[in-house]
């Protein structure tokens, strides 16, 4: 029997009293606790108290509150829906059967909720249910499933997602597919999509960022040219996504050189008015090609940039360079630098640097 004082406290005007009462009722172990808390939830106006009630429900182990929580996924209050979703997500392992049943139900909102909840856990949705979700009549369920599969790195679903990307006329679904395939696709996915998007420069604006992500995630070395040409034709709006894509390609293919034409594109980009974070990532990208004297010399001015993060990025980026001017600059910086983190990096770098005898390539005139 729940303490009468606690029940009375649920009716008190102070939020804190009702919140503490809800917590203590949920901890009471009493068989009637669920009913009392659910009844209070229906009339409660305070978000903090609602939250305490919902958390209390999820802690009542001796009952199966999952069905109660699932009912709450249809509550009129989105706060209650979101809290219920979060509670279910925490105990998804135990609520799996109930959640999977939702995926087969008639309610599109519950189907979407189920995908969203399950995809946030490490447990994963059974393949058959994802397959069904990708064919759902409600496009929002399909998009949620695509997003979930990409984030969850479910490479087995690259083929059905590719099929949707090729056939769909719904822009949001197409973008979702491109971005998922950037995570789980491969060169074959990209080649297949050329039927729809032959070249990045011809991709409609709303798909462009997603397509460039796809190039970065799946493209071969040859996509360097395509991405650099895109930066030239589209300008500043694509710089950030293009730099990311180039970095991914460089890392995946372990590139240490790039054609002189594209060295020029990237080095000239440093002269553009870029946001600091974009410049930072560009410096890091150029670091992959710093064996080239052209690239190394373009990075040198950043060693003493007033933004010391750019300075540190430049120090790291110049690791691969054997250019004597670079070494002299680093040694000079080591005598004047005040930032301890940069100093440490310079010292480590000087220890690690290659000692080449071959002349540097692409020496600028």
């Amino acid at each position, binding site marked *: 029997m729940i303490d009468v004082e606690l029940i009375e406290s649920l009716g008190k005007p102070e939020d804190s009293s009702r919140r503490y009462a809800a917590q203590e009722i949920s901890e009471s172990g009493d068989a009637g606790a669920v009913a009392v808390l659910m009844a209070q939830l229906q009339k409660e106006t305070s*978000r903090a108290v609602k939250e305490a009630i919902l958390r209390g429900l999820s802690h009542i182990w001796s009952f199966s509150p999952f069905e109660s929580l699932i009912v709450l996924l249809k509550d009129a209050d*989105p706060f209650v*829906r*979101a809290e219920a979703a979060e509670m279910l997500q925490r105990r998804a392992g135990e609520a799996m059967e109930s959640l999977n049943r939702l995926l087969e139900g008639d309610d599109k909102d519950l189907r979407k909720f189920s995908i969203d909840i399950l995809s946030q856990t490490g447990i994963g949705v059974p393949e058959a249910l994802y397959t069904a979700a990708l064919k759902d009549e409600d496009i*929002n369920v399909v998009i949620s499933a695509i997003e979930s599969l990409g984030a969850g790195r479910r490479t087995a679903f690259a083929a059905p997602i590719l099929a949707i990307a090729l056939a769909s006329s719904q*822009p*949001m679904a197409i973008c979702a597919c491109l971005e998922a395939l950037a995570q789980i696709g491969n060169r074959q996915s990209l080649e297949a999509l050329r039927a729809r998007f032959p070249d990045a420069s011809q991709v409609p604006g709303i798909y462009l960022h*997603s397509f460039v992500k796809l190039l970065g995630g799946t493209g071969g070395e040859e996509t360097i040219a395509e991405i650099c040409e895109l930066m030239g034709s589209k300008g500043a709006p694509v710089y950030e996504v293009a730099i990311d894509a180039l970095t991914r390609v460089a890392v995946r293919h372990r590139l240490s050189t790039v054609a002189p034409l594209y060295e020029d594109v990237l080095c000239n980009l440093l002269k553009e008015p870029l946001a600091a974070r974009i410049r930072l990532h560009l410096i890091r990208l150029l670091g992959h090609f710093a064996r080239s004297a052209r690239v190394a010399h373009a990075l040198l001015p950043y060693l003493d940039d007033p933004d010391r993060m750019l300075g540190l990025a430049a120090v790291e980026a110049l690791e691969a360079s054997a250019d004597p001017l670079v070494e002299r600059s680093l040694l000079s910086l080591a005598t004047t630098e005040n930032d301890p983190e940069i100093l440490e990096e310079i010292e480590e770098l000087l220890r690690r640097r290659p000692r080449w005898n071959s002349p540097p390539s692409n020496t600028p005139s």
Partner: protein
Amino acid sequence: MKRNVLVVDDSEFTRNYHSYILREARFETVTAVDGADGLEKLYSRAFDLVLTDINMANMDGYEFIRRVRNSGDYDDLPIIIISTESEAEDKSRGFLAGANLYIVKPSEPESLIANICLVLGIQGSEDASANGG
């Protein structure tokens, strides 16, 4: 100067997607992951429009809109809800909270931009980058 739009949604892809559409139409965008993040971002710079989802953990869209309106600082800021919830009650709640428009996801890009221009009282994407707030 471009017009600034705050895009509030707990789905990263949806934030990105709406940002792509808006930027293609020459708007600037800032994104937020939920209502609480949205409030902090709102206070950090001037926006011409807010585009918000409803179902978000931590602070849902209705609560976010209520707090924006109750602050007294953003009475005239246009707020558009864009949500998968399609029932009439959801729309009523949105307008009661203080939204100017309610759009059901997914919206075709042209339709979304047309609705945004309608709410902002501008002609089209050329106006998006002129005389921004």
